[in-house]
């Protein structure tokens, strides 16, 4: 009854026949990335992966008795999926007070996913701002796993302060070791003990002056950052259809039924959240 695109070989779906009814899972690991961001590693009660999401796909995570909300899946392993959640509202407050071993309910995966196929053979510039790195990281990990399919990788990431950098182990240990992958970090305001760049992401991007030839850009972060980064990218000669981003919208059902997350005739939870900038221009200006 869930008729996802089953033709994709590594698509595993164990969700029940009714996509609106979640599965009870448990949180097996909670890592505090920053004072207000935590990463939750989730596994079904019988120790399996609830589903195998494609990079950029979302999951509806609900805390029984509190509420339900849509979060991006930032990573997946053999028998778990991970999601990084920032503390912004009632549900996220309750999530941040959880301890390992507590139950949680999950359903998904939802939404389209990053265009892994038509980025094949191209260089990719990943740009993240604050918690925006979470959805991008799913594509970075995918690219690293299929390293041979992709050209040169650049990860450009900035946040308010060094303490606010998420996935520090990836940024400083794992990713620099990957061949032909450069990590560029920046923070908004100077800090002692930080010798890296100090600049807003758009300004930092312009300093780097990437060559647009044969390069795709994956850009996620707060709307204000996306706006200015896009201007810089266009100045550098990137074309809009090569710049990919994810949209944030209020979502309830996650499967394109409840009609809430529409922008024009497109549903962000179904036709998105991943859009190219050119696709976004066709949609009415109602974000």
């Amino acid at each position, binding site marked *: 009854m869930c008729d996802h695109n089953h033709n994709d070989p590594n698509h595993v779906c164990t969700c029940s026949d009714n996509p609106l009814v979640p599965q009870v899972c448990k949180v097996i690991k909670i890592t505090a990335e920053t004072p207000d961001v935590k990463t939750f590693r989730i596994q079904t009660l019988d120790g399996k992966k609830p589903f195998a999401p494609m990079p950029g796909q979302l999951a509806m995570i609900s805390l029984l*008795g509190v509420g339900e909300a849509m979060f991006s899946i930032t990573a997946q392993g053999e028998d778990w999926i991970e999601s990084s959640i920032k503390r912004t509202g009632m549900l996220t407050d*309750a999530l941040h*007070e*959880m301890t390992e071993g507590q139950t949680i309910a999950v359903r998904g995966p939802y939404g389209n996913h990053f265009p892994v196929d038509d980025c094949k053979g191209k260089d990719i510039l990943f740009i993240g701002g604050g918690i925006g790195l979470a959805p991008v990281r799913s594509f970075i990990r995918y690219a690293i796993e299929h390293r041979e399919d992709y050209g040169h990788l650049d990860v450009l990431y900035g946040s308010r302060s060094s303490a606010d950098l998420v996935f520090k182990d990836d940024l400083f240990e794992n990713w620099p070791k990957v061949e032909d992958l450069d990590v560029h970090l920046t923070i908004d305001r100077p800090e002692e003990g930080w010798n890296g760049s100090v600049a807003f992401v758009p300004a930092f991007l312009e300093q780097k002056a990437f060559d647009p030839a044969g390069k795709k850009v994956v850009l996620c972060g707060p709307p204000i950052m996306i706006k200015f980064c896009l201007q810089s990218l266009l100045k550098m000669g990137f074309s809009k259809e090569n710049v990919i981003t994810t949209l944030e919208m209020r979502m309830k059902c996650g499967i394109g039924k409840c009609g809430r997350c529409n922008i024009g005739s497109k549903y962000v939870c179904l036709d998105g959240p991943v859009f190219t900038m050119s696709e976004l221009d066709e949609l009415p200006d109602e974000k």
Partner: protein
Amino acid sequence: MSRVGVFVCHCGTNIAQTVDVERVAEAAKSFPGVVYSSTYKYMCSEPGQAMIKETIEKENLDRIVICSCTPRMHEVTFRKMLKGTKINPYQLEIANIREQCSWVHTDKEKATEKAINLARMSVAKVLLNEPLHTSSIPITKRALVIGGGIAGIQAALDIADAGHEVVLVEKESSIGGKMAMLDKTFPTLDCSACISTPKMVDVSQHPNITLMTSSEIESVGGYVGNFDVTIRQKAKYVNHDICTGCGLCETKCPTKVISEFNQGLAKRPAIGKMYAQAVPAKPVIDPNACRKLIDGKCGLCAKLCPLGCINFEDEDKLVTEKFGAIVVATGYQLIEWGELYPEYGGGKYKDVITGLQFERLVNASGPSEGHILRPSDNTEPKTIVIIKCVGSRDPKKGKSYCSRACCMYGAKHAHQILDKIPGAKVVTFYIDVRTPGKNYEEFYDNTRHDGAIYVRGRVSKIYEEDGKLICLGEDSLLARKVAVKADMVVLETAMVPAVGIRELAGMLGIAVDNHGWVTEAHPKLRPVETQTGGVFLCGVCQGPKDIPDTVAQAGAAASKVIGLLNKDSMETSPMISKVDESKCAGCGFCVKMCPYKAITLEDIDVRQGPKTVKKTVAKINGGLCQGCGACNVACRTGCIELLGFKNNQILEEVDSLCL
């Protein structure tokens, strides 16, 4: 989810006898959010509290529920205990399973069931308790006393002696009030001036007291600890800094007007001291009497004054000062009996005088140097009638209440007459004789012993007949009519609040009852405080009383003020209301409902699309709000909420009862 600890107290056998505390603790484990629950013999004891504190650390709890006795007993204790832990003292709820459960029920099964319900309700509420912090407001260590009568003087002296600055504001040109007019005071018959003048001199010489006579309160702003009071110092036309009070101007002033101090029995010049022992002993010019000020003629006093203190161009000055506390001691005045009692001559007969007029007659510094003379022909009256309860205890014509002091000063007047006029005949008409104080009854007995005749009944009519005042009355004990041919009649009239008390109460935000007496916070619990924080009261302004009670109240009010001013800052209770300005529509329904006038409507700048606009919202003064919560219900949107009793907390409590 948050981590709640539930601690069920045995209270020896008080609770454990009719409530199965173990089962309550067991049931508590199943409530959402509860991660630990246990019982202990005496939760409020030292070891009990230690056990709780230790469990908080061990179990990493962030809120606790204690099922024990009434929160009115140990809420403070447990909050102090929490101060030593990482939990905010206000993330605590107490379920009353003793006074309202174990002590009042017999069936153990049902009592345990109820205890579990009460515990569940407390847990449901504590899950939504937010950490609250007391805020402190600075206190200006200065006090303002309004009214320079004996009440104001005594309060000012006590506060000043405690080392705090006091400003004493008096409407008249001198302090002393009504007591200065009296000759003797009951029951000791010691001379009124001998008690009050030394105190008045102390006031003028006290380093901490600033005296502002001929001044009135213009406006009062701010709140407890931080009042800004604007005082209007009326023009005196005499420069008191230079004037030595020699009195030359007073003797030479050609105009003579009725002297209010002498109750109209004598005249006074346009310039002069209110009375001989006035403090400050310096003259002022009465602008409604002085010919120079009215039509520009005369000005003799200016010419005569050796030091040139007279200045006819003087104007009112407005002074604004900061105060931490305010004492209202505005005293009283006598009722205008003229129109109320036409049957007593309505003021036509010169020899029908009031109690205060009699005091002036019998007073050595009075117009007749103490000789009791008939104002009409200055002859010594032989037969004097005293009528009590004129205007008091008379709801139809005057006031419904008893003015408390007239029985005693009526007896004093009788005593003075018999003392000063040998062979005089005093007939006192009364309804009841009330002598409610130490040695009061004995004083009354002596007066009757001296020969005062007491007739129980009201005088129905007084009329003049060949030089005599015929008082027709009735002796209700002997049930026969009485007619007394009197040379003079003294009416002991009712006390009514001083002029202007309603406007002053409005400025201070305090309440007055329908007669105009200032309403105390609580007759027994807080008799010298008012509903508004930082505003105290003493003396007759609160209700008729005699001098001993007035002085006692003045001391009490002073001690309250000293208690307040001794602290540098005042901790306000954190359980006050808070406004969510984004949802406030500025309708003002809450403003009128606040008994403490703690809510005001103010404009704030709000961005609305491109432009910023002025939006009216409600603002709460933390110092004044006492946390009653009436405003919460006035607000339909629910954007003004009392911290600790927010809408969602009470809703959760209601929901959890029937789970």
